[in-house]
């Protein structure tokens, strides 16, 4: 464990760590292509080195030549990404020599870079913009014609390339070589005519292709899904856990009051490393308002649908459930949090005295699949959590019992906690048909599904809150419990499974009395605003660049 001195501070680093790993905390690191913590401002802190081609999840390339540091005893500057720390090394990156070399390194990157900031999606989180503000802000001296390359190149079903913006850091090429192991990308031509591209007839078409958009430090690779939808400084972000499969990758969701726009991965050593899959990135679509149930719907004896508020709908259904006695069944998908399962299963077992709780397994055949990197075959984030709760309450059932019960009439009412990520539930239509045999169906669901209109008899459809709107715990395939907090609220009238369960059991919802009307803020920058408000100062904060 060698000890070295960085900018005057003594640091102990791991064996074999390079200087750049030592300066970035030997593990997690942050530049503008990784989202920053709320309230944190990027600055030329003494522990950070400007870099483009280094990424802690990829091999070292050493091609951007920006990460020079000064090592005492060496007349030449050395690159920090490829120099291993030795005992007693004295490293310095605040001297004028280093700043000059970084300024010229940036200058060389910019001489052929197109003036695309107005139309480039990366504006606001661009590596070049960030470094220019740090130690650029100079007038460019290049008076010659810039190199022209291909723009708006369709690399595949998810990614668009702009070769002029590309700084040839080769992160995307190394990603397809080392992480996704699909080797689709390469650098063609040589010199300043070099361009990223795919080989003949091959497209960038793998399940992790959008990670290349994340790691691209400039706007060369852009996601077709997010392209031009919103400027990044209008988006807020918060961490949560993806609900696509049982891997439980940590993600950061970007949103504003219009809805959610995109999802990016967050580094978690145990769960997903630096990456996430493409399927998980589409799941924000099920959360946005246009795809949700906003009001509860009720149909009596197959008649017309009428609408009401979710709470009222649940209370209405509660009356019917009470009259069913214990001929009530509960169908659960593995999509809800452990706390919600606790509450609703507890309600069922204690209030309705019914142990007819069934697990809706949408992928029994592919359950134990694993593609080698991240994607798991079980497309529910919390199956293990569900089983844990069911075991605790001593519930052991199988789906065939439900079908038998529906057939012979021993189950009159069914409460269904429907899925959130509809794309992984191809058996929805089938299950709707099966469950519509019951007399009363209370379907709790977050995203809209047209097939629910096929339910006959007495139906209540009650809108639920999606996974980003509640606090909770998911247990992933390896048994790791991950707690996450609410990101924001999209449909405020919707109920969580806990609230729905309480209302259906005939309880009133608990409203916690507010001890003080002024709720203390949790995030540091909100605290600042609060202090100023208390002092009667007006702090005006715009979206930051």
């Amino acid at each position, binding site marked *: 464990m060698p000890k070295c001195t960085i900018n005057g501070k003594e640091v102990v680093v791991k064996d074999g760590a390079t200087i750049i790993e030592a300066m970035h905390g030997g593990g997690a690191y942050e530049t503008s292509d990784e989202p920053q913590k709320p309230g944190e401002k990027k600055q030329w802190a003494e522990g950070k080195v400007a870099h483009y081609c280094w990424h802690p999840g990829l091999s070292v390339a050493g091609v951007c030549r920006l990460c*020079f540091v000064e090592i005492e005893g060496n007349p030449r500057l050395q690159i920090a990404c490829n120099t291993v720390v030795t005992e007693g090394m004295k490293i310095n990156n605040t001297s004028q020599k280093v700043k000059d070399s970084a300024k010229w390194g940036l200058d060389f990157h910019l001489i052929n870079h197109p003036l695309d900031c107005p139309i480039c999606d990366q504006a606001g989180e661009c590596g070049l913009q960030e470094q220019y503000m740090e130690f650029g802000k100079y007038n460019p001296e*290049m008076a010659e014609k810039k190199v022209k390359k291909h723009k708006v190149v369709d690399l595949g079903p998810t990614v668009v390339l702009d070769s002029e913006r590309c700084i040839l850091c080769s992160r995307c090429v190394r990603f397809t070589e080392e992480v996704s192991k699909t080797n689709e990308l390469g650098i063609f031509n040589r*010199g300043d005519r070099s361009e990223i591209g795919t080989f003949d007839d091959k497209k960038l078409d793998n399940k992790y292709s959008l990670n290349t958009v994340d790691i691209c430090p400039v706007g060369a690779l852009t996601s077709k899904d997010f392209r031009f939808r919103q400027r990044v400084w209008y988006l807020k972000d918060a961490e949560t856990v993806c609900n696509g499969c049982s891997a439980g990758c940590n993600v950061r969701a970007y949103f504003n009051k219009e809805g959610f726009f995109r999802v990016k991965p967050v580094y978690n050593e145990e769960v997903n490393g630096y990456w996430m899959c493409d399927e998980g990135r589409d799941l924000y679509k099920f959360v946005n308002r246009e795809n949700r149930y906003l009001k509860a719907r009720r149909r009596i004896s197959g008649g017309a649908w009428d609408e009401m508020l979710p709470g009222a709908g649940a209370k209405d259904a509660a009356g019917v459930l009470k009259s069913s006695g214990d001929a009530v069944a509960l169908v659960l998908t593995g999509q809800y949090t452990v706390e919600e399962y606790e509450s609703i299963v507890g309600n069922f077992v204690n209030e309705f005295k019914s142990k007819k709780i069934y697990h809706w397994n949408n992928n029994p055949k592919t359950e134990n699949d694993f593609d080698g990197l991240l994607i798991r075959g079980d497309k529910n984030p919390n199956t293990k959590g569900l089983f844990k709760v069911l075991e605790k309450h001593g519930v052991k059932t199988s789906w065939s019992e439900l079908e038998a019960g529906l057939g012979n009439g021993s189950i009159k009412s069914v409460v269904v906690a429907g899925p959130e990520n509809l794309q992984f539930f191809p058996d929805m239509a089938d299950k709707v048909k099966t469950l519509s045999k019951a007399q009363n169906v209370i379907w709790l669901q977050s995203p809209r599904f047209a097939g629910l209109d096929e339910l006959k008899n007495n139906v209540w459809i009650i809108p639920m809150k999606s996974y980003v709107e509640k606090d909770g715990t998911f247990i992933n395939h390896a048994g790791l419990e991950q707690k996450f907090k609410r990101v924001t609220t999209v449909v405020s009238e919707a109920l969580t499974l806990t609230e729905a369960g309480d209302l259906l059991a005939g309880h009133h919802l608990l409203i916690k009395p507010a001890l003080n009307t002024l709720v203390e803020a949790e995030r540091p920058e909100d605290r600042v605003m609060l202090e100023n408000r208390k002092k009667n100062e007006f702090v005006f904060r715009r979206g930051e660049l």
Partner: protein
Amino acid sequence: MSEIKLLTEFYNKDEFRGINGYQKMGGYETLKKALKMQPQQIIDEVKASGLRGRGGAGFPTGTKWSFLPKNNEPRYLLCNADEGEPGTFKDRMMMERAPHQLIEGMIISGHAIHSKKGYIYIRGEYFYPISVVEKALKEAYDAGFLGKNILGSGVDFDLDVYAGAGAYICGEETGMISSLEGLKGQPKLKPPFPAVQGYLRKPTIVNNVETLAAVVPIIKDGAAAYKKFGTEKSPGTKLFSLSGNVMRPGNYEVPLGYPLKDMINVLGGGMKPGRTLKAVIPGGSSAPVMNAAEVEKATLDYECLAQMGTMLGSGAIIVIDDSQCMVDMLGVLMHFYHHESCGQCTPCREGTGWLDKIVHSILEGRGRLQDIDLLEKVADNMKGRTICALSDAAALPVLSFIAKFRDEFEFYVREGRSKVKGTAYAEMHH
């Protein structure tokens, strides 16, 4: 002093090319002697002789060989016959006229470094030398000088020719290793150095054609005899490729320390009638240029030229007389480096393009006075900041041309035409 014919004694004899002629004139005897020596003895002999790399860097060969790790990993010996440096054509002559000399040198060197496999990387444009060397290899295999158990000594050595595809950057040692591995010929980061981790991640020694051929006379006559030629720090002889505005351009072998002006006037036949010497580039286009006053004082060895601020390099002496426009010449050089940059690291990729564009805009009459300072600034900031030395090779000519011939540049910027030729770019190159 006149030419010494250590390496080039039989170049003009056609039969020297074939194995029978080569053996008749004393070839492969040294190999028999070397196979009886221990590998460490050969390395010591080469170290004692002070042989320096003849490809351009001038690194002591014996020292390079001793960097190899002492383990049982397979080693590779690579012969760098890429000869991309503009102005150099000495290796081509050796491969065309004395291929067996090279092969013998490689087998001896392979034995010295415990290598069982060697490659000769010849640039793709050398169609004729490739065919000559391949024929020579076949003859050597048939005669039992290559392959398993050479001449019954228990030493195995296999040699193959690998043709390049037209990239100057594949002459850089790690670029060549990448190209041999089948990847794009882009240099790798150093450390790790090729002697520790090179071709296929195994210890690799990369040497120039001339260096490997010079091993033969060293082992034949001993290190002391080799040191009799040349100077103390630069012993031995070297092949120089003389070109440019001289009467008799060609390859000349002289001992190191030979005066440069003698090379041009005596061996090269002097300038063309009515012309005076203006500048000389002594070591291939990457070496800083010398003006006429410096040429008078220079001797052809590593130390003297390094002291004068230039370098011996690959030994390509380009002679420039007063009819040549220096701005035009710089334009040609910059176009070369712009075309040949591999594009991996940013300062070289963008910088070579930028230098090329600025020089050409001066040549086309659109130059501004601050362009000359800009050229110096860009070249200064390209040096020393890249993976390989192509960036330095592009920057050094710019700095030296502007330092020594600034008046020609300023004239061109102010008047829009060449000081020497009187005409503008379009007329010089139509």
